[in-house]
């Protein structure tokens, strides 16, 4: 019997993680630059803004106001300061809402895929009911019924995101639960919870990462749209969505009040979208499983 193993020098290098692989793509690099830029603006903007978010500066809709860079808006507030203040709420709400959606959706999707049968039917059909309402419409109905509050916005956006994530996760998990290492885990008596979260979940992270990115993009858009339609807890708080709504009538007099928030929202969604696209491109090639040929 020959016990010496000579293949050590032939062992392939382990490929780097999904995100690192995606970073090699130009689109992901552009996406990361754009998102980082906009997130930075949104997060540190309030600290560098020259005026307060609701401070009266000068005559409304004036471009050349001394001391301001881009003039005043419909209410006589500094456009640049409003812009610098306006991203934070949207971003924070979107991140929290998406996290809720991801957590719930992943748990439900994995459970449905693992248990199959009756439980699968119950979970997925219940989620289909939620899915059958368009996301904007659902949010509008709920918020107009109970009045806009941050908690409500987070909950509706998070819950309406859940079924979409659950479907994707269930789809990728169904292939994983059929594989032998799941049977192997069951055979040694792993608890159901452990099988789902420590055997199945790590094998659907690629899909999860892509979906997380996509849903974050959508949530930003949705929350901004809600603000545009006037559904914000404080009627005069700085908010990119609201800014577009407030200043659109004076577009010819003071274009910056619309251009700045629109550009910001567009670039942020394009940025996160590009990252998601890069991730999904790379994940199509990773997780080969099967025969390692």
């Amino acid at each position, binding site marked *: *019997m*020959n*016990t*010496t*193993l*000579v*293949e*050590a*020098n*032939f*062992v*392939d290098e*382990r*490929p780097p993680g999904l995100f690192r692989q995606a970073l090699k793509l130009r689109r992901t690099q552009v996406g990361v630059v754009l998102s980082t830029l906009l997130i930075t603006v949104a997060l540190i903007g309030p600290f560098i803004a020259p005026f307060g978010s609701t401070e009266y500066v000068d005559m409304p809709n004036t471009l050349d106001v001394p001391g301001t860079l881009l003039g005043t808006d419909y209410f006589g507030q500094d456009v640049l300061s409003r812009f610098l203040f306006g991203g934070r709420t949207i971003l924070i709400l979107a991140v929290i809402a998406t996290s809720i959606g991801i957590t719930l959706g992943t748990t439900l999707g994995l459970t449905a895929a693992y248990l199959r049968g009756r439980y699968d039917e119950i979970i997925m059909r219940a989620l289909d009911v939620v899915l059958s309402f368009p996301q904007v419409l659902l949010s509008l109905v709920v918020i107009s019924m109970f009045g806009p509050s941050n908690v409500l916005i987070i909950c509706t956006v998070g819950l309406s995101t859940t079924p979409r994530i659950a479907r994707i996760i269930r789809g990728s998990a169904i292939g994983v639960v059929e*594989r*032998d*290492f799941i*049977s*192997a*885990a*069951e*055979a*040694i*008596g*792993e608890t159901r919870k452990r099988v789902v979260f420590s*055997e199945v979940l*790590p*094998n659907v*992270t690629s899909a999860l990462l892509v979906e997380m990115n996509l849903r974050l993009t959508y949530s930003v858009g949705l929350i901004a749209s809600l603000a545009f339609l006037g559904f914000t807890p404080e009627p005069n708080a700085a908010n990119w969505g609201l800014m577009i709504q407030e200043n659109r009538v004076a577009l010819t007099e003071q274009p910056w009040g619309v251009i700045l928030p629109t550009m910001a929202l567009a670039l942020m969604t394009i940025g996160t979208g590009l990252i998601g696209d890069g991730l999904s491109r790379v994940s199509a090639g990773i*997780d*080969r*499983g*099967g*025969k*390692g*040929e």
Partner: protein
Amino acid sequence: MACRECLQVLIGVEKVNSGLRIINLRLNVAATGNDIVDEVNLTIEKGRVLGLVGESGSGKTTVGLAVLSHARRGVEIAHGEIYCAGTEVLGLDADAKRRIRGELVSYVPQDPASSLNPALRIGVQLMEVLEVHDFGGSSEARKARIKEMMAEVLLPTDDQYLERYPHQLSGGQQQRVGLAMAFACRPSVIVLDEPTTGLDVSTQEHVLKTIRQLTRDHGVAALYITHDLAVVADLADDVAVMYAGRVVEQGEVAEIFGNPAHPYTRHLVAAAPDIAGKKQIVGLSGRAPSPGKRPTGCSFAPRCELAADECREAFPPNVRISDAHSAACIKIGKRGETATQTSPSIQSVSQGDVIIEVRNVSAGYSGTTVVHDVSLTLRKGECLALVGESGSGKTTVSRAIGGLHREWTGSILLNGVPLRSAARQRSVEDRLGIQYVFQNPYGSLNPRRTVGDSIARPLLIAGISKSASRSQVLDVLDKVNLPNSYANKFPDQLSGGERQRVAIARALVSNPQVLVCDEVTSALDVLVQAAIVDLLGNLRKDLGLSMLFVTHNLPLVRSIADHVAVMSEGRIVEVGPSESVIGDPQQQYTRNLITATPSIERSLL
């Protein structure tokens, strides 16, 4: 004299013109320029079958596809010439290439289930081939040709049969339709890429017979790609052995198997189990170097017991051994010790206590019973092989024993105590007492977990601390002959054989009494299979393990098991010591199974 030479040259050209000739073929990885195959020279005369054998990754299929002037994505044909019936195919333009495929040279893929379009009736698919190549001229002539082809591959010729969809046919019938499509336009050359790998032995026998018949009758040169030496011995006229992208030995079947010259070929033959002879199969560790990592000299040198310095300097030249036999090795005729070991691996038939008893077990899936009233006994230290064709219910029985299949009635006793049906309901001792090793090592390890963590899981569940489990993990890695460093590797860094060793280590770590091995070698190459069988044999001896070895591979049974139970259609047909069951089968079913199994020794007689 001059005239005779002229004549010989003419005959030579004539021969080449009508068959397949590959000259100095090289294919590269397009991105890096590393060679996948290189210096391949093969000649197949019309009416003859050449078996191209080698491990997975040796470049067999790459050569096969190149004959159709095709390279997979990311692969490029670097240089070489391929003549199919006198036409050089590599230099053709895209349109001409498309025309010759199916007409001059055709291809039969490995998996008939995925190569036939499931949405089209088989008659339509056959017609398509003929129409694309404008064969026969009229629709009536084509219909007649389809019927003729169906008759030649021994399938019904009526219209009703032609209206069936692929899923309405069995695997063997699907592969026959694949053959009919390949032969439809009367090609001169045919490439068969493991066409019988997924088929049962009796179906395989029929398909092989059909292939032999068709190639002889129509004077087709056939390139038969396979890793199964016994099939080659049974079917082919000539053999070419590939290793790491090069042909290391070629010649007539009797020469290659009777007098293998290259050390690699000798290892292959020594590792192949044979139904006709009881022999210990000998494995070889290591794996073939992948493109870009091949050494300058002989690629086999790192694994070769005869390797000398000169082997590592340059690739050895082709040495002629006889008219019909050559090998690329400078040490021809010298033998290492490995190939001469023939001592039987099973010394004694043990008579220990009954450890597992299966009593009148019937099992099924959602109401349909697939296993009927099966009873088995497994004694301590014994290896019982459960043999049968696909669908015989052997895996269902083994899964029921392992607690992975719940839908069964009857009783399964471990040391005289009945077991609950599902693993989760069983006690920790029962669960860890019976360990299951899965067929596919690519699916049985969690790709996101290190080898060490995978092996340690059963221990952690049994309540052993992390630090204590660590030493046990290293201990068990040692038992399966893997270095300690492997504990920190991920499954995708390992070869198939190494993964299967890890899976065995995971099963062994909880000190089980019984190991259930479900086709554990069927996804592995023959050299790796031999090494795993060797490992299992040693573990059984050293640890006093009892083993249930489920397999469809009858020749392997002789090399591993003391007892064998033959299953067919959910019932046990025959049980007994493996020597007597295989040497002198009492049941017709077993007898048919044994005759249908191809054998190197029998073919050479």
